[in-house]
């Protein structure tokens, strides 16, 4: 990603902006079931560190450290994604590298909550992203 940042730096106008949106490097997503009765928290998802994510954050820090960009801000934001079935939730969970695993006891609680759901229920995962704001240095 350092090469990509350098290519972008060359293509940016003076004082051009870079916004780097990535998953937060280290955080534990949580899972909940929401229906007409409200939100029921189920538990945490084991999320092993993703080397690609860590490398992306390190690359950005490096180009800032080397003076190629100025870091204007680095924000963290929590957001929720929703799934309308267990299978779509599992498909997303398995799409991650390493695969997201449910913490001990979470799977049975999730299945029980999903069986008892009311109309319009969704499975919610709470996640965290970072938004780094950089500007091209001139000179």
């Amino acid at each position: 990603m350092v090469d990509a940042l350098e290519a972008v730096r060359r293509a940016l106008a003076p004082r051009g902006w870079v916004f780097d949106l990535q998953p937060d490097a280290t955080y534990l997503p949580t899972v909940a079931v929401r229906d007409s009765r409200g939100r029921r928290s189920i538990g945490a998802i084991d999320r092993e560190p993703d080397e690609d994510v860590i490398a992306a954050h390190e690359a950005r820090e490096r180009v800032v450290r080397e003076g190629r960009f100025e870091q204007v801000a680095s924000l963290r934001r929590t957001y929720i994604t929703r799934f309308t079935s267990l299978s779509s939730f599992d498909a997303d969970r398995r799409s991650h590298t390493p695969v997201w695993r449910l913490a001990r006891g979470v799977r049975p609680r999730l299945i029980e909550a999903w069986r008892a759901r009311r109309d319009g229920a969704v499975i919610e995962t709470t996640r965290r992203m970072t938004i780094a704001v950089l500007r091209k240095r001139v000179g």
Partner: protein
Amino acid sequence: MRVSLADLSRGKSRAREVWNQTPVGWFREELGPSDIGGYPRPGIELRIIERFVSLSGRQIIEIGCGDGRLTFQYAPRARRVVALDANAAEIERARAEAERIGARNIRFLARPAEGPLPGAPFDVALFTWSL
């Protein structure tokens, strides 16, 4: 085209197919794209970005655009957009959607971000979940 909730429950791959065949507006109103993947709801990322700089009238390059999930959110107000992704299949889907909705100011390219980038200079670069 009408897509039922049952269609969406057959896993991410099927959901992505549905997404790719479904008008963006319908999906936003009925479910929200967050039902099919790990991204924030439409508008969240742009609201954060535009706390720093308005994207209106800007020349923008996006790295890792995928199927244009974010691109189609901001492109209507950008001056022009060059959007890259190394995944040719995703770019094909993005191009098809651009054609379908008549987006004329977006150039989708199937290529990595390394090396000289076409269309410079740009005012804003977006790295969107690109690792």
